[in-house]
């Protein structure tokens, strides 16, 4: 696991059924592109988040492929319709195989 990786999500705790809500996510990650060289001229191996997904009660909302040119601490903001009470599941996939997860419950009311 890369150092200092911590996912963060901002989602409303409550929504009316059928509401469109804004979701914000950020994961601290250095997003090493694999293009840079260290002091001795050796390539620094690529280490990025290569995929991000968000699902609501198991149903996909977004599924994003990230490439090496995306800068450090990738941030996503998107909207989703909340039809019923349930859980938002956020997943980040690291190059090194690590998977970071966060979950936010949304109540109807």
């Amino acid at each position, binding site marked *: 696991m890369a150092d200092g990786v911590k996912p963060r999500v901002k989602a409303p705790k409550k929504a009316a059924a059928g509401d469109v809500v804004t979701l*914000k996510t*950020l994961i601290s990650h250095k997003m090493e592109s694999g293009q840079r060289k260290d002091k001795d001229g050796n390539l620094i191996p690529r280490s990025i988040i290569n995929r991000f997904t968000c699902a609501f009660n198991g149903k996909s909302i977004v599924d994003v492929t990230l490439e090496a040119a995306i800068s450090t601490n990738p941030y996503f903001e998107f909207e989703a319709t909340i039809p019923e009470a349930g859980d938002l599941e956020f997943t980040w996939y690291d190059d090194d195989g690590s998977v970071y997860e966060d979950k936010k419950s949304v109540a109807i009311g």
Partner: protein
Amino acid sequence: MNFKTMSLISAVALALPTLGMADADDDTLVINEEIKIVTKAPAPAHLDGALDEVISGWHFRADGTQAMEMDDFDNPGMLAVETGEELWNTVEGSEDKSCASCHGDSASMAGVKAVYPKWNDAAEEVYTIQMQVNDCRENRMGAEPWKTDKGGSIPMEALLASVSRGMPVNVAIDGPAQATWEHGKELYYTRTGQLDLSCASCHEDNYGNMIRADHLSQGQINGFPTYRLKNAKLNGAHSRFKGCIRDTRAETYSPGSPEFVALELYVASRGNGLSVEGPSVRN
């Protein structure tokens, strides 16, 4: 719309652009819909004849950059504040203490950042907040000091700034600190480098104008440490001074040097009256 109002509007439209697109805008900064930030204030008395109003660098940035600072979730500098909070509670050194052991909650430090750099009686010199943190680390915790703008210095300064946000910068320039302040003022107005520029050449005489593709602000440091989009990390004031002096094509002082401590005191005093804003977001 008749011809007369049309020509009036076009006259206004013609007059405005001559002020330049780089001027400070009139937006207001409220962080988390809660913390009101004073980003424009009457200039402190010692700036009589130099500036009428002091303006935070926030006003010189594009709307998108400005928005990043208005919500902690969107502000990448807050990642460092979280790191700072961890450091605050980390026990280090021979005395088995963390910052929290003596000071309690980090929120109890509200207002501290606003008065630094500040004269330290025991050391008989002006301390930046990073020096004060190191003083604590060495003498109370028995821990290794951090280098200026390196290691834990920046996250800790970011934490201390964040709990003081919204409070007015109010550094003392008289009393024992006066000599250091005078030194800082002299440095501010001294032209350096092959380009023969002083701090004032850009940040006093030409703020609101463009320097190549970028907007010149007043160079206020109330928002430091500052998250810069160009290098995607938090930057300390001394590192920024170094960057500026390097850009005049001069040999620079080092971060943490007595010259930069004096300059930090002087530049901070030019922002007396603005709110502490760090960690801010800039280009």
